[in-house]
């Protein structure tokens, strides 16, 4: 698992990059009440807004961590946004990306470095 400075986690699964937010981020956001997912097939560049989540406090964007194509989205979150708080590292993944340059992932933090960031 890799971590971004925007508190997203990235996991490689079947050659795809799965993206979610960390437990730290979900705690900071508070109770999530709404998730808006991108269309499957959307091509995104690193830093593009990919997902909108609204918590009881505010709206936040989830950014595309790298260039690529969104090939799957987690529709379950539309009906159950609370999953983002209940299981941010598991059931509450947001989308899966096809990424040409998998080496781009190397630039992100590992778990120890991320823990240092949030402490």
């Amino acid at each position, binding site marked *: 698992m890799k971590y971004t400075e925007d508190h997203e986690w990235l996991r490689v699964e079947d050659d795809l990059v799965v993206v979610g937010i960390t437990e730290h981020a979900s705690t900071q956001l*508070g*109770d999530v*009440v*709404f998730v808006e997912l991108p269309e499957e097939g959307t091509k995104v560049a690193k830093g593009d807004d990919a997902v*909108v989540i*609204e918590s*009881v406090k*505010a*709206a936040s964007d989830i950014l595309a961590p790298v260039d690529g194509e969104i090939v799957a989205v987690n529709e379950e979150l539309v009906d159950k946004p609370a999953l983002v708080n209940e299981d941010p590292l598991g059931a509450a993944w947001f989308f899966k990306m096809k990424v040409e340059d998998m080496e781009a992932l190397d630039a992100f933090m590992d778990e120890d470095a991320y823990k240092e960031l949030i402490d």
Partner: protein
Amino acid sequence: MTRETGLSELKRTALYDLHMELGGKMVPFAGYEMPVQYPMGVMKEHLHTRAAAGLFDVSHMGQVILRSASGDMADAARALETLVPVSVLGLKENRQRYGFFTNAAGGILDDLMIAHRGDHLFLVVNAACKAADIALMQERLGADCAVVPVTDRALLALQGPAAEGALERLVPGVAEMKFMDIAVLDGPDGEVWVSRSGYTGEDGFEVSVAADAAPAFARALLEMDAVAPIGLGARDSLRLEAGLCLYGNDIDETTSPVEASLDWAIQKVRRKDGDRAGGFPGAERILAELETGTARRRVGLLPDGRAPMREGTQLFADAEGGQPIGHVTSGAFGPSIEKPMSMGYLPTELSAEGTQVFGEVRGRRRPAIVAAMPFRPATYKR
């Protein structure tokens, strides 16, 4: 919120240490360091208040005693009526009512609770406005009345269906009170000033207790299973579900009481042809508006789907094109109604229940329906 204020300049309430001990997440609010939430989180705090009882520290609000120099309560009531368009003289002893200070242009300077305490009036005003409210009363009423800020008492709100049972254990007698009754009763450590009211749409109480007795009083309540501490976050979603205005968001100096759909708070006696018609700042405009209506009205809105339309969201008549016709002044997800809800201003001709309008959220117009408020029926004990 006064975001520019550094934490170091902020005031603290008598319950500050307790908030820290309970894990409250402190934020600046109206010049005070206040808990926005506790570890339970906004959503659960909201639902707990509706299911059992929530304890709120509202000590940042202003408590003020208004006493006439003559010693006659009616003189204090008459004096206050020169600043508010509500019937203060018509208030019975040990009762309170909602009101607002208006300005010469007919806008709202603050909203407040006014209580008749036998030989004086007791007022509760908003934290952000209290200095201005007190200065206004001292300037305009000071010749005939003593305006005495109460600075040595905390103010707690206990709200929800279990509030009566919990408070009765500490302050015997509260169970006999009805909605908007007030009473001075014996608490565990001195006199408490109780009103059966609040700002959540729930049955409940606001309790003014001596600042040095307040932490023990709050702890005694929190020891009961039914009672949990609730922060400003849930206070906001609770009041919005109840259709209640937040001063500074939904009402301010630029909104008249009639535009704000607060006509119900202006009793007949202060309206045109009433015995004490007018005689308050902005009367000309407000009395005229009560007769002929206003160009815009504050309404409730239920957005389609789950995306909240928050404060500042522009409203449109159509799905495409046209200029904004109004805007949202408060918006959030309603944990009890399980959907988003908003309050805002619309042209009166588009303010009827069931009218469809569109709110622009992140560049896309989404439908919302004008809806009756409260969004969730109140459970006051009348």
